[in-house]
């Protein structure tokens, strides 16, 4: 069965002065699949994600999402179309409680915010979905904790909860396990496993355990170029990939 | 609308533009490197004027009414004042957020103005045009005041000097690097603190030069720094923050548009609309011109005309 990809990138190019950070990249994500992007530091993974999210404008190429050409769309517009992004460095609202953080995410997709008199906290349309998202990532008991008082690992969970609360069709996850302990990473892997199938997911990760546990397909990025793309088993055995990247990490796999 | 009136106003505009450039250069560099805007920059302009006027009127080493001595006192006074200010108070503000920087330098302005008021009083402190420059020079067949022409020459000289310094020397390279990526320059082992103190001092000295040259033609009085400071802010925003080149072009553009506009806009309006309306609208619109220019530039290019590319 060939379903149309949720996200499709063709010939994406991004240059910074003399440096080509994204070199004619083709990439797509099918509905319900986890497509991981791996590569050594400096490969241009975050640059790629930023272009997908709309924070950077590519110099050439085309980005299609859910049938629309979104190459020229603004960041908020892409989110409203169903593109959800989580950040490598948690971008949360430190002064708000976990619940308030996720409520804002829900609010963004729950109609107009030109409401001046009614307290947002009274709106079950906001609080219920927010509480659900927090429950899903495992922060249910920490709803009323102020974000600045939470641990790093909890920030990563909150980060994901916020992205999920925007009810996206596609998740762009930028190193969700960054900075997490072994135990925390295992929980996160289990969580993303539960999300598989419900969402199309593009996952950037360094953690090879996670990548091979979750990915349906893996794309390998080196110096901005795609050097391999395929099923995990094929990537594991691809000589070019071993050369450029996996090299001495073979034991870990 | 006579030719000679136009040329005179154009030259006045260029002269005003160079004064703005002198102030803008220091301010934009410090902002570009330390992300710090010193609103009390106008106070340094004012103090330069006061130091020079005081030295001119009271004399130093027994010599009175020497413009060179007055200029020397004005420049070194501002430089020293700038360095002292930077080392004591301002260093602590670099890490603070912009609101704190604004408020602290606002407090400084109040203090400086009152100190000036206390020492020299409320009325304008008179500094006359030096005798040697009281005449006129011949430009394109028109007699133009020598003193104002000197300002243009000094301004152009400083601009060329800065161009040479920034483009052709190692210090200039450090400055350009710092404007592009300050933490990196620090990480490379350059004493960024010293560089910044020097830069700040030089910026203060330039403001002092602007002040002491402006003294004889504008009036030296408490609070003289703020109106021109705000125009300088318009200049650096229009030119592009951190960019000397931007400051240069924007300063000249702003200086010329403001000066020529104030004189010719009412005249032009009188041609196309009835007299009393032109009388009312002319000065009003003329006073808005430079802000409208800034708004238009920002609407099209929010980073300014010649922005610095950030590393």
């Amino acid at each position, binding site marked *: 069965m060939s379903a149309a990809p949720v996200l499709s990138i063709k010939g994406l190019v991004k240059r910074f002065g003399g440096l080509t950070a994204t070199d004619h990249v083709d990439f797509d994500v099918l509905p319900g699949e986890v497509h991981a992007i791996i590569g050594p530091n400096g490969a241009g993974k975050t640059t790629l994600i930023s272009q997908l999210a709309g924070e950077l404008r590519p110099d050439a190429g085309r980005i299609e999402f859910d049938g629309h050409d979104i190459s020229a769309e603004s960041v908020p517009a892409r989110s409203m179309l169903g593109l959800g992004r989580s950040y490598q460095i948690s971008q949360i609202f430190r002064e708000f409680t976990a619940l308030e953080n996720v409520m804002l995410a829900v609010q963004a997709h729950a109609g107009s915010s030109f409401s001046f008199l009614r307290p947002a906290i009274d709106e079950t349309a906001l609080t219920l979905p927010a509480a659900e998202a927090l429950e899903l990532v495992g922060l249910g008991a920490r709803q009323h904790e102020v974000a600045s008082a939470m641990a790093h690992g909890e920030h990563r969970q909150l980060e994901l909860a916020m992205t999920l609360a925007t009810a996206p069709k596609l998740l762009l996850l930028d190193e969700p396990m960054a900075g997490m302990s072994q135990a925390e990473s295992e929980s996160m892997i289990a969580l993303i496993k539960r999300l598989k199938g419900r969402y199309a997911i593009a996952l950037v990760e360094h953690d090879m355990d996670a990548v091979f546990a979750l990915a349906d397909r893996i794309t390998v990025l080196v110096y901005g170029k795609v050097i391999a793309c395929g099923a995990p088993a094929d990537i594991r055995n691809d000589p070019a990939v071993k050369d450029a990247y996996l090299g001495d990490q073979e034991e870990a796999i | 609308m006579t030719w000679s009136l136009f040329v005179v106003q154009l030259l006045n505009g260029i002269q005003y533009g160079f004064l703005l450039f002198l102030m803008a250069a220091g301010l934009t560099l410090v902002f570009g490197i330390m992300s710090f805007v010193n609103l009390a920059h106008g106070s340094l302009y004012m103090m330069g004027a006061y130091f020079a006027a005081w030295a001119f009127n009271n004399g130093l080493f027994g010599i009175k009414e020497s413009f060179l001595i007055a200029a020397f006192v004005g420049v070194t006074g501002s430089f020293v004042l700038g360095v002292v200010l930077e080392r004591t108070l301002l260093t602590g503000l670099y890490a603070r957020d912009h609101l704190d920087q604004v408020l602290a330098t606002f407090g400084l302005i*109040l203090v400086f103005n*009152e100190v000036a008021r206390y020492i020299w009083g409320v009325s304008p402190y008179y500094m006359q045009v030096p005798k040697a420059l009281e005449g006129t020079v011949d430009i394109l067949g028109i007699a133009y005041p020598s003193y104002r022409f000197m300002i243009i020459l000094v301004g152009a000289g400083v601009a060329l000097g800065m161009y040479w310094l920034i483009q052709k020397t190692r210090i200039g390279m450090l400055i350009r690097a710092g404007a592009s990526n300050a933490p990196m320059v620090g990480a490379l082992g350059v004493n960024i603190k010293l560089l910044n103190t020097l830069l700040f001092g030089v910026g203060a000295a330039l403001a002092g030069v602007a002040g002491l040259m402006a003294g004889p033609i504008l009036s030296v009085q408490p609070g003289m720094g703020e109106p021109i400071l705000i125009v300088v802010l318009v200049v650096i925003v229009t030119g592009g923050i951190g960019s000397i080149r931007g400051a240069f072009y924007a300063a000249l553009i702003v200086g010329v548009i403001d000066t020529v506009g104030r004189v010719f806009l009412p005249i032009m309006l009188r041609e196309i609309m009835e007299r009393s309306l032109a009388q009312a609208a002319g000065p009003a619109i003329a006073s808005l011109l430079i802000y409208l220019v800034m708004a238009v530039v920002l609407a099209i290019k929010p980073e300014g005309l010649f922005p610095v590319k950030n590393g």
Partner: protein
Amino acid sequence: MLKTLKPAWIAILVMVVLAAIPIYAALASQPFYVTLFSRIMIFALAAVALNLILGFGGMVSLGHAFYLGVGAYAAGILTAEGITSGWAHLAAALAAGLVFALAIGAVSLRTHGMIFIMITLAFAQMGYFLVVSLKNYGGDDGLPLPTRSDFGIFSLANNTVLYYLIFVCLAATLWFFSRLIESRFGYVLRGAKSNERRMLALGFPVFRYKLAAYVISALVCVVAGFLLANLTKFSSPSYMAWVVSGDIIVIIVLGGMGTLFGPVVGAIVFLLLEELLSSWKPGWFPGIEEVINKHWLALIGVFVIVVILTAKQGLYGQLVGGRLGKRMANGGAASSGGTRHA
């Protein structure tokens, strides 16, 4: 949950005292107190207005005095043209304020950080010069208001009536803003201050909300300006001077920008300090009065610098809740968007 908005007992106490001032003034035969506190409340109103976007929205506008001028001159110009109805004055003031705020906000809010601060300052200066150039309406000298705005059902000619009008405006604004801060709109505003990048990524078209907040803030300031012209019976370009914009920010920080009511406390302290310093005679040594009475601005300047370097939460912020005030005052840089660089 943000407890900022449950009115602390101090806030209620202060409002009660303010409401009682005219009574006290009458009993003590000191009508001056009514004018003094009218002025204090007007600046409290302006400061509360600015704090909506500054303290809660992270937009440091150094040009809000511009809107004081708009309100004042709407009353002044219309009165000069023979229109004395207060309703007309207010309508014109709000309409003009809306147009200016939309225009200035639309241009300024495309920038962030220090550039935003400089641009707002520049536009306010533009307003100052614009008003000075209106020779038909007083120009540099300002425009007297021979009679106060006429509202028909009540007369502002009575200082006490004007006092209570100002009080009602202040109370109403505080109430409205307390609702606004906790509403959806308020969360967007506060979220944008905290992390604008994330707000955009969540799908919020942040610009239009910031513009709306800017306009609301400006319009309340316009009302304050209208009241000021009525109080002093004068419209002056000096209302739009950069010093005034700076003073309003000092008032906010002094009282505590993390709270709604802080600016009210700030206004009381700041203006009373101004009043006291300009007539203080401590007699410590000969000539000290002269220095203090004529140069009290320098003392205010020093005071501001000290406050900035030490008491970041402000006086009211300290009283209401150290941790909470600190959280709001330090949470996110106060420059627009939460990032320090332009």
